[in-house]
């Protein structure tokens, strides 16, 4: 016999609980991937709205539902980047100028932190994303693999490589051979 379908109110209740439980982690996920807090707040608002609209597709198991939410967040970010990219090189230049300014400001604050920040910015985007997922977002390697659509074994080797690159850059930040 088939399992009974969840009622509408049961779906709403479950989705609300999952959203509330993961809300702060989702906001942090957004903040770690956009350059300023306003954009992070926009991304967060959009991803909550999107997840709520699609709640009927949310897996019914809390851990799976959490992974699903981060998948929604990834898609919202990807869509925004695609949209931003269509605005062309002019905005890209502006973004770069703002980032450089932000980096200069940070450099004046604390050299040690700046080394790591520069190093993280210098490794390839895929490696950076993996380190951020694991050490900032708190994903384990299997979860990171699912989120990125990769095999766990690929993630394990990529993680090790990313960490080595970071370590080398922190040790010798001016060596261009280390950069991705």
């Amino acid at each position, binding site marked *: 016999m088939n399992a009974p379908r969840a009622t*509408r109110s049961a779906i*709403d209740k479950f*989705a*609300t609980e999952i*959203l*509330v439980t993961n*809300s*702060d982690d*989702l*906001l*942090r996920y957004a*903040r*770690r991937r956009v350059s300023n807090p306003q954009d992070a707040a926009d991304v*967060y*608002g959009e991803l*909550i*709205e*999107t997840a*709520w*609209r*699609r709640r009927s597709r949310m897996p019914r198991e809390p851990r799976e539902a959490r992974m699903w939410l981060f998948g929604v967040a990834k*898609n919202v970010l990807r*869509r925004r980047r695609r949209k931003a990219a269509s605005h062309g090189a002019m905005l890209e230049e502006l973004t770069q100028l703002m980032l450089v300014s932000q980096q200069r400001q940070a450099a004046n604050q604390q050299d*040690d*932190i700046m*080394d*790591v*920040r520069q190093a*993280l910015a210098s490794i390839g985007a895929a490696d950076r994303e993996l*380190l951020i997922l694991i*050490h*900032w977002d708190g994903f384990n390697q299997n979860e990171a693999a699912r989120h990125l659509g990769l095999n766990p074994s690929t993630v394990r080797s990529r993680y090790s490589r990313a*960490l080595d690159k*970071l*370590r080398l850059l*922190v*040790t010798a930040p001016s060596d261009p051979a280390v950069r991705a």
Partner: protein
Amino acid sequence: MDTHENLINRLRAIDPAAEMDTAAAAQRVVSRVVGAKKQRRLSRGMLAGLVIGGIGLVTAAAVPIAMSLNVNGKPVEFDVVIPITYVDEQQTNHECAIGVYVGSGTDKTGASEQIVEELEDIDWSGLGQRAFDRSVSALAGEESADEKRAIFVANVSMLYDEALPVELLSGDQVIASSIDCTGAGL
């Protein structure tokens, strides 16, 4: 050379979200979104009447079919239900809907799922009122109920087609739709 632990600690120290104290505010956003978006879910069974369908693209050719949508001669379920709401000149609220099916023929693929997500992301609010307002201005005053319905459905279809991103129409996916609007209030 950094030890592993030292490197990880330094990496964590530059997390831009580490010092954020936002849990309560983040939860309030969820509460507001959930509160605002609890709309009446339109039953798929309500979607009967005129069917607007197409293979590979959406067309405005109306083909009457009762109670279901057929693709390649087979009945299919709707993937997205778009609520159409409007207020008539007597301030009466009206509701009807567009049911949309997406598939590669009658099969589902990754591309189908992606299109469904794109459709769900579109803000459809206001479509019903714009269709109603356009229909009112198109009436000569002597139309029958069937003619009013046809005018309203044509306007809904036109606005729906305009809202669909062009790239969704360029693949090999079927995007078929059914409308149950009657033009009530015209």
